[in-house]
């Protein structure tokens, strides 16, 4: 158990600069970027919003904690839930940064198909999640 705790502490410590940097960046963006910017970037249509969210999530990388912090603040700024969902899903399912390693070990064709599929599914998953939530809530 001691070893598991050490491993967890090490994992969190490795993520520490990224998390701290993200919280600082989010705090800065929340203060200096007006809400109207986010509303201009998103709020076009559900499909386009989720597409933009997926692109932003796909090119971003790092601990999922970072995506929750970013996603939560995007929501507070008035970005639609569908765009934030697509962003969250693509952040964790599309791995552009890991693509070379995935290609080398599991094959180029598989890595490309899997990441492309994950990108397209992040849009579908986002739209479907928001639709279901709309029905049940």
């Amino acid at each position, binding site marked *: 158990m001691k070893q598991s705790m050490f491993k967890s502490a090490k994992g969190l410590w490795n993520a520490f600069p990224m998390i701290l940097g993200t*919280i600082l960046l989010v705090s800065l963006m929340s203060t200096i970027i007006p809400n109207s910017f986010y509303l201009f970037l998103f709020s076009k249509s559900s499909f386009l919003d989720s597409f933009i969210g997926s692109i932003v999530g796909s090119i971003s990388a790092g601990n999922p904690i970072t995506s929750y912090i970013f996603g939560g603040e995007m929501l507070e700024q008035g970005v639609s839930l569908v765009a934030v969902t697509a962003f969250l899903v693509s952040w964790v399912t599309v791995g552009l940064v890991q693509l070379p390693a995935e290609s080398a070990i599991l094959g180029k064709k598989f890595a490309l198909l899997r990441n492309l599929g994950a990108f397209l599914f992040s849009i579908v998953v986002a739209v479907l999640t928001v639709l279901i939530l709309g029905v049940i809530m």
Partner: protein
Amino acid sequence: MKFKDKLKQIPGSWYFLMTIVLIYILLLVFRQEAILDSLTFFCQLIYKMIPIFVLIFVLMSLSNYFITPEFIMKHLKEKGIKKWFFMVAGGILSSGPIYMWYPLLGDLKKKGLSYGLIACFLYNRAIKIPLLPLAIIYFSWQYILVLTIVMIIFSIIQGILINKLMEVNK
């Protein structure tokens, strides 16, 4: 060791943090008020997150203790529909960086594991139980529950599609 080599050993995430701190210092000269507002916002966020990080640490320790690559390998030998179930569970319960799992998955591929099952495992790594408390605080439990269920369903759909596409492309 040369200074240049020492610099190379510093992980990129520290450079990211240093860049953000530098931006703060630079902006402090031009927009002092905005920086003070940002720091207040930062303190509020940190205060909100401290108890969640303690919980994340406990859950991560438990998952590291009970869920090992050996545990997952043992259950991947299941047949039929059970195999999909264990791939979903294995992906959700697995911990550590994704690249750590590539060699094991590559080895399992050689032993006959289908590409679809590997894709299903990798997709479900997106669902992290230790991080759920933080996600719930930001997005509500109803949202996280629906998102998790939809993602699990789509991980299996992606697995089936990858199996078909890899067959076509052979």
